[in-house]
């Protein structure tokens, strides 16, 4: 048996990007959640990014649905980014749009690129941690509820994983989070 994490990585990336690895040329953001990558031979692929639950925890029921979406659209492979978003790589724009609607039906917003809120992440907090002084996931949940529209609909002024002061001020007046 091979020790360590599963290797090589080429078994885990979508088969249609295997020839383009290391040969990418440009990318452009089509819409907040969809990015087009072009390689030197002109092959195009699209990456769809979706937000996740605040602490990245899913029930197996939901995870199986996500896995089925990866199998249906992106060649049975997907990736989780370091900022706990989900990314699916698909072959054409039609698939990307279809995947976007399916993800949104599941309840995961598609967005998080360019001048938008990029990600919302928390530690385990009271959920599993042995040392937590306060609970992080519920705070992020409320921030997500209040500012989720900046993930894909309304634009922030700059690329920001942190929140812009203006946005915070507007959010305060709009609806106050209901943290107990």
């Amino acid at each position, binding site marked *: 048996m091979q020790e360590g994490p599963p290797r090589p990585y080429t078994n885990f990336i979508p088969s249609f990007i295997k020839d383009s690895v290391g040969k990418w040329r*440009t990318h452009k953001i089509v819409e907040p959640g969809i990015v087009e990558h072009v390689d030197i031979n002109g092959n195009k692929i699209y990456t769809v990014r979706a937000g996740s639950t605040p602490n990245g925890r899913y029930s197996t029921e939901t995870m199986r649905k996500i896995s089925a979406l990866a199998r249906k659209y992106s060649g049975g492979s997907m990736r*989780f980014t370091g900022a706990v978003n989900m990314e699916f790589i698909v072959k054409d724009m039609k698939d990307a749009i279809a995947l976007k609607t399916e993800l949104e039906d599941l309840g995961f917003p598609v967005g998080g690129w360019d001048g938008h809120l990029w990600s919302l992440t928390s530690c385990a907090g009271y959920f599993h941690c042995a040392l937590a002084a306060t609970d992080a996931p519920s705070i992020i949940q409320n921030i997500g509820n209040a500012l989720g529209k900046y993930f894909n609909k309304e634009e922030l002024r700059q690329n920001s994983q942190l929140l812009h002061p203006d946005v915070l001020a507007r959010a305060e007046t709009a609806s106050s989070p209901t943290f107990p």
Partner: protein
Amino acid sequence: MSNPPEEVVKGRKILDDLKKGDWPNFVKEAQKTRYPVDLYGASLALKRDLFTTGGYVSVPGAPTGILMRVTSRPDIGESANIVRVLIPSGNFVTSEMLDKLCDLADKYGVGMVHAISTGEDIEIPGIPKEKIRDFIAELRQNGYECGSTGDAFRAVTTCVGSALCEYSNLNTEEFRDKFYDMYNDFAKYPTFPHKVKVKVSGCPIDCGRATQKADIGIVGSWKGAPEVDEKLLKNLNNEEIDGIVNSCPTGAIKRNGSSISIKGEDCTQCMICVRKSKGAIMPGKEKQFLIYVGGKLRGKKGPLTGKLFARLNSPEEALDIINRIVEVYIEQAARKERIGDMLLRVGMKSFMDMMKEVPSSMNSKDLRTNVFYAVNEKDREEIPRKVSKAVGGD
């Protein structure tokens, strides 16, 4: 149970409140599983953490990868031990892997998957102590491995690298695969004074946080000026080119009419022009690879950024130097001292000197770490020369 405790009743109200809103909801997800949600609600009501570390468990073949948790209120909910599963390079996972992990989480855990943790591995929570052995056996039968806890190499994290990014100077996934080919024992068995985090970034934008959060960080880079593609530069309009020229922090970019020239020795590789140019400016052809040591966020002496340690011509040299860094670390560091803390204590200069010393069992303080290191006559000359060259010597 006839009447639930007061804090559980209060907690359920808070949880109902938390279930409102549009953002993907973690309470709703948790309620689809067998996770003790009442326990979480109670801790919200009490404003106090109800989990504590649950000691250690001995599982053959799994010295790292298990986090023990017990609850201080077993009357409300059961314990929730966690097993960390290492994922393939670049955080790519397949549907088969996810389905298999879901099956295992249903069979042994509470039917919950944590994908992914901030340490970039998948965690399966809620496995009872007596089932951990069977769980890990079945996990390893399917070709997956647990790890990334304790005083070992934590899960090596990378940016997406060559698999999806045009700026990448280093195939980060391939590098990570090679790293685990070489250092799996150090990743599996806790041998170090404290944890060692290795992070890999393909370019100086550093999406993998190799310079900030890694004890040993590897960054793909290049020598001299970035490459300018005149054909693509013609697609940019006047203001865009002006924007690129003005954005350079050291003024290395000069404009001559419709073309630009970049002075290599002034370039600090901030990548601003590369990002603004829509593909017209790309990282240079002649690559170099930078090793940073001593970055961390937590620890005795607070957050530290990594210090540039060596510039190398190939990623394979980086793999060799990591071996020497951890050898010096094991010999010199105090218990529970990260590499960054050790560097503050001994100083960078003497750390460099320690790196140049000839590796032999005679000059090691702790025989345990070096006694099996066989050095032949060729290596005896080669290794010190290589290392001293890499760290800037003659």
